[in-house]
C-alpha cells in the first residue's frame, strides 16, 4: 500500500502547488487536502495532470481549529502530514487575531490529532526564518542552532516560533514519527502571495532611512521540491531528513538592489516614522504590514543553508537573485525601469566614443 499524504492550507498558492507535485510522486496513493476553502488552480509552471498516473485527491473541508481534523486523519489512515497552514495572512480573513488562532490553535489541534494516530510516520511543518527575528545585535548569518537575541514579540514570526515549540514537544512524545521543520526565507515566485511580495508591488517603496537590509528569497519551485523531499522516505543510505532546516536561495540581495531591479523608487523614512506609515497603511487597507516586516526592512536577515544541502542533498535551483528576477518578471513596470536607465548611460557612453574618433584626425593636422 502506498503513502497517504495529508496537506493543510491547500487553498493557498504553495499548498495547491505542493498537492499538484506530490500527486505525481510514485508510491503516493492518496492526497488529502484540508482547508476552509477548496484549492484554486495554482499559478506557475505546472504541466497538466495526467490522471492515469497520479494519485487521487480528496478535499476535506475542515477548520483546523476544530477537533474534526482527528477524524480526517483516522478516516483516510494518513501516514504523512504536511502542515503548510502556518502563514502571515489567510485568504479567508484579515483579522490578526483569527490568523493567529488558525496558526497556533490550528497547529495544536493538528498535533493533538497526530499524537493519537497510530499509523502516522512523518510530519513536515512549514515555518519561517522570521523566528530568528532581526535586530542589529544578531549575527549576520543565522544557522539552525543560533539562539535569537530577542524572540519575535508578535505577528507571524511569533506564531511560527510558538508552533515550532509545540512541534518540538510532539517530537519528544512521539519519537517514532520523523519530524522536519522547514524554515523558509521570503517566498517569491510568479504567484506568491506573501506580505513581502505585496510590499514590492507598491509603486514607491518606503524604506528605513540609513538602513539597507540584506534579504534572501526562496523560489516557490524550490519550496515545493524541498517539501516533497521532506515528505518522502529517504532512499537507501541517505540521511534521515529530520530536524530543523533553513531553506533559502543562495546569495543575498540588498533592498536597494531589489528596488532598482524592479524599477521602483524608494522613499527613505526615519525608522520610527516607518512604523506609523505602516500602521496607517494597514488601517487604510492599502497594505498589510506588520511590525516584524519593519524589522526585516531595517536590519534584514540571512540564513545558512549548509544543513539543507548536506542532509537533503538539495541545492535550490533558484539563487536569491534568480528567484527575485523571476518574481520581478511578473510585476508591473516601475517608474524607473532599469532598462531605460541603462539606455541613458549607454547613450552617454556612446557619445563619449564618437567625438573621440572624429577628433583624432584634427589633432594630427
Amino acid at each position, binding site marked *: 500500500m502506498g503513502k497517504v499524504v495529508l496537506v493543510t492550507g491547500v487553498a493557498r498558492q504553495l499548498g495547491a502547488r505542493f498537492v499538484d507535485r506530490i500527486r505525481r510522486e510514485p508510491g503516493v496513493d492518496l492526497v488529502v487536502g484540508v482547508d476552509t476553502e477548496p484549492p484554486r488552480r495554482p499559478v506557475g509552471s505546472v504541466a497538466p495532470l495526467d490522471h492515469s498516473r497520479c494519485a487521487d485527491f480528496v478535499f476535506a473541508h475542515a477548520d483546523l481549529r476544530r477537533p474534526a481534523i482527528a477524524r480526517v486523519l483516522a478516516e483516510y489512515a494518513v501516514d504523512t502530514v504536511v502542515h503548510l497552514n502556518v502563514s502571515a495572512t489567510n485568504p479567508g480573513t484579515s483579522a490578526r487575531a483569527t490568523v493567529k488562532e488558525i496558526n497556533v490553535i490550528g497547529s495544536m489541534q493538528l498535533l493533538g490529532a497526530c499524537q493519537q494516530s497510530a499509523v502516522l510516520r512523518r510530519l513536515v511543518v512549514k515555518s519561517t526564518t522570521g523566528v530568528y527575528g532581526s535586530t542589529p545585535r544578531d549575527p549576520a548569518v543565522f544557522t539552525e542552532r543560533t539562539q535569537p537575541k530577542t524572540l519575535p514579540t508578535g505577528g507571524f514570526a511569533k506564531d511560527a516560533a510558538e508552533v515550532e515549540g509545540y512541534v518540538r514537544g510532539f517530537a519528544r512524545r512521539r519519537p517514532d514519527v520523523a519530524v522536519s521543520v522547514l524554515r523558509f526565507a521570503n517566498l517569491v515566485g510568479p504567484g506568491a502571495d506573501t506580505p513581502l511580495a505585496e510590499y514590492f508591488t507598491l509603486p514607491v517603496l518606503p524604506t528605513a532611512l540609513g538602513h539597507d537590509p540584506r534579504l534572501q528569497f526562496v523560489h516557490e519551485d524550490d519550496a515545493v521540491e524541498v517539501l516533497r523531499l521532506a515528505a518522502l522516505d529517504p532512499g537507501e543510505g541517505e540521511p534521515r531528513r529530520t530536524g530543523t532546516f533553513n531553506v533559502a536561495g543562495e546569495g543575498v540581495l540588498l533592498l536597494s538592489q*531589489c528596488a*532598482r531591479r524592479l524599477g521602483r523608487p524608494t522613499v527613505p523614512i526615519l525608522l520610527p516614522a516607518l512604523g506609523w506609515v505602516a500602521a496607517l497603511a494597514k488601517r487604510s487597507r492599502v497594505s498589510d504590514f506588520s511590525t516584524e516586516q519593519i524589522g526585516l526592512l531595517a536590519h534584514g536577515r*540571512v540564513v545558512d543553508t549548509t544543513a539543507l544541502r548536506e542532509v537533503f542533498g538539495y541545492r535550490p535551483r533558484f539563487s536569491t*537573485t534568480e528567484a527575485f528576477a523571476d518574481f520581478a518578471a511578473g510585476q508591473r513596470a516601475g517608474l524607473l525601469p532599469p*532598462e*531605460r536607465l541603462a539606455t*541613458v548611460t549607454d547613450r552617454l557612453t556612446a557619445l*563619449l566614443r*564618437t567625438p573621440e574618433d572624429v577628433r583624432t584626425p584634427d589633432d594630427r593636422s
Partner: protein
Amino acid sequence: MSAAHEELPGEAKVIPIESAPSWSPAGDEAGADLAAVAARLADGLGDLLGDLLADRLGPVTESVFGKGWEGRAASGLAFLRRRITGDYEVDEFGFDRELTEEVFLSALRPLAEKYFRIEVRGIENIPAEGGALVVANHSGVVPLDALMTQVAIHDHHPARRHLRMLAADLVFVLPLVGELARKAGHTLACNEDAQALLERGEVVGVWPEGFKGIGKPFAERYKLQRFGRGGFVASALRAQVPIVPCSIVGAEETYPMLGNVKSLARLLGLPYLPITPTFPWLGPLGVLPLPTKWTIQFGEPIRTDGYPPEAAEDPMLVFNLTDEVRETIQHTLYRLLVDRRSVFF
C-alpha cells in the same frame, strides 16, 4: 575555500538585467510615457554635453581632466550603469566589493597616503590566500586606525585582500553608519560571524581592546588595555587560521584625549565623550585629526593549526595565546616608538 572562490568577480553569477523585463512597451502607460520623456531629456542633455565637451571645448576639457579622460568617464558611466540598475553582487554579510573598491577605499586613500603618510611593514605576514586573523591595538577616539588598516592591507598586499573587521554593536545600531559598515565588509563582533568569515577564508580584523583602547586618556597612550575575553583566539583556534599581530603607531596622537565628559556621554548613550586640544573648542574644525605620521607593522603570524580544533575549549591555552598576542603587539609598539623620529614626521 569554495565560498571565497565564489566571490571572485570573474566567476560571480550575474543575471543580465535584460532578463528581468520589468519594463515592457505594452506595460503601464503612464510609466512608459514618463520613461520616454526622461529618455528624451537624457538624450538631449547627452548630446549637448558630448558636443560641448568633445567638439567645442575638446582641448580645454583635455587640459582640465587630463589625457584619457574619455576612458575614465566611460568606466565611470559603466559603474553608474551597474549601480542604478542594481546589477552588482553583495555577499552574505552585505559586503559590496565594487562599492568598497571604487568609492570607500578611493575616498580614504588620500587620508592614508597624503595625510598620515602611512608606512606599512611586514605585509608579507598576511597570507596570500586563506583565512587569517589580524589583531591590532586600538587608539585615537575615532576608529580611524581600523579604516586605515583596511586601506593599507588592500593597497599594499599583492593579492589586494580585503580586511573584514569585527565592529562593536553600537556601529550597527546607528543608522547609516551600520549600513556603510556592512557594505564595506564589516560585521558584528560575535563568535558566529568571526567563525563564519574565517572559515570562508577571509582576512578578519579585530581590535580586542574595544572602547577601552580607543577611548583611553592621552596619558596612557600606547599602553595596551585588557584584551577582552580572548574570544578572537578561540575563533582562530576553531578555524585553524594564523593570528597576525598588528601594531599601529601614530593613531594615538590624532586626537589626544585630555578629558572625558562622562555624564554627558552617559546621557547620549555613548561610551565616552572626548575633550581634545581642538574639540570642542574649535567647533567643526576640532573634528580634524592631527596630521601625525603613522606606521603599521604586521608581525610574524602565530600559527594555530598545531593545536586540535577542540583546543578552543581549553581556557588556559586561550588565555596564554591571548597574552602572547598582546605581548607581541606591546613590544613591537615600544620598539617602533623608540625608532620614531617625531610624531609628525
